[in-house]
């Protein structure tokens, strides 16, 4: 059983297709829509959590891509807004994957994107709200 969050970008031409229905019926996937911005004849974006068996998971994602939907894992969407950051370091104790670390001796915060697992703990732990999820 696999479970992962994705950001899906729908080209304007396909926003009216019932992708959720196909993923559930044809690929046996559980689809949890976390956030979505879908409008008729406009490019749409959605954040979904997919769960299912490994094979179904793979085929489901390939199906989306074959229909022109761009699929990105969610971790690419956590953003460090440096100009809002006060370099305090409150986030560094909360980040479970070591993606937010203090650089010593400068005592500045560093965001290592490749270590981020998109758990989103930092979003609310940051006092100055310098961490954002962008969809």
């Amino acid at each position: 059983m696999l479970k992962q969050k994705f950001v899906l970008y729908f080209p304007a031409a396909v926003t009216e297709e019932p992708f959720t229905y196909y993923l559930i019926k044809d690929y046996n996937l559980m689809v949890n829509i976390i956030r979505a911005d879908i409008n008729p004849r406009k490019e749409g974006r959605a954040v979904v959590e997919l769960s299912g068996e490994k094979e179904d998971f793979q085929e489901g994602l390939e199906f989306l891509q074959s229909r022109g939907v761009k699929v990105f894992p969610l971790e690419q969407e956590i953003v460090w807004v440096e100009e809002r950051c006060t370099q305090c370091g409150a986030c560094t104790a909360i980040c479970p994957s070591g993606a937010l670390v203090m650089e010593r001796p400068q005592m500045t915060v560093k965001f290592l994107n490749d270590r981020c697992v998109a758990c989103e703990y930092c979003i609310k732990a940051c006092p100055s709200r310098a961490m954002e999820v962008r969809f």
Partner: protein
Amino acid sequence: MVKKTYAEINARIKAGEAVVVTAEEVTPMVRERGLEETAATVDVVTTGTFGPMCSSGAFFNLGHSKPRMKMSHVYMNNVEAYTGIAAVDAYLGATQIPDTDAANKTFPGEFNYGGGHVIEELVAGKEVVLEATAHGTDCYPRRKLDKVVRLEDLPQAFLFNPRNAYQNYNVGVNLSDRTLYTYMGILKPNLGNANYSSAGQLSPLFNDPYYRTIGMGTRIFLGGGEGYVTWHGTQHAPGAPRAHNGTPIMPAGTLAVIGDLKGMSSKWLRGVSFLGYGVSMMVGIGIPIPILDEEMLKYTSVSDEELFAPVMDYSESYPQGLGEVLGQVSYAQLKSGEISVNGKLVTAAPLSSYFKARQIAEILKDKIKKGAFLLTEPVFTLQSFMNNDA
């Protein structure tokens, strides 16, 4: 023996000859050259701190409307300001949240906006929605006002913070088995992390532990502009236990400070949110310490290895007011990112920005060197007890 007066130091500043260093830079100087030689050379040591300081806020005169109004409720961007003073005066506190904020009804509340954020937006030059209501009187007939204001439109606006620049503070930990949401940030269960909030060796009151040079009228860097110390702050506790170098090992002295909001910057006044707790404001403060003699130099040369903070459990000891301290750790240990509590290694994270504290000390140093910032001799110094070594 080196002896210097404020007047002599100011004369050197005006002549562009003053030797000014930060509290970080002075420590190795004293180690290398000794107290007497360094005291003869250095005139001023600059300090800095930038952290959440809840007891902050601003007084506003909102200007009279036509017809006039005695405002009894004032909201700025939906955040209420206190109006129990004259007609169009109000005090907006940094920790005030909108009446409509769900607070902790859904725990932990997010507290995304409050008084500190309004002050930050005003100093950034942004428009703020002002809403006022009144009961109406013969002299002040108007009952409702709704308009958009900017800081520049307000006749007077000054920051007046009753408690800032705490001389030392607790290190927050959590001995319980559930996550705590506190003003010391998120504390993970079973000693999951340790949060601290002081600039340590750069912090103003750690560099003048008995307040020999700090008191009413001391000119300071405040929120990016100039301000003054007006009084000892609320909860000022000069009798706190102290180490042999004179620095307190518990929270001790505090400052009440004032300054014109119109000269300040949103870079140095920042609204902040603490999950499950509330809002606050990060305030930047820097104080120049005149090196009047070797003793003052000795105080300013203190380093993180010699400054100690108490570790406090925020699941029981702090909220219940039991006062039990789990141990003392040095700021050098805290800054290393790991401390030992009850025999366990715990990740330590700061809530105050050492990076910004250092920038403040540098800005103040440059201003003094350029002759753009003169020192003031306090009218009287803060209440102090000099003989209570731990």
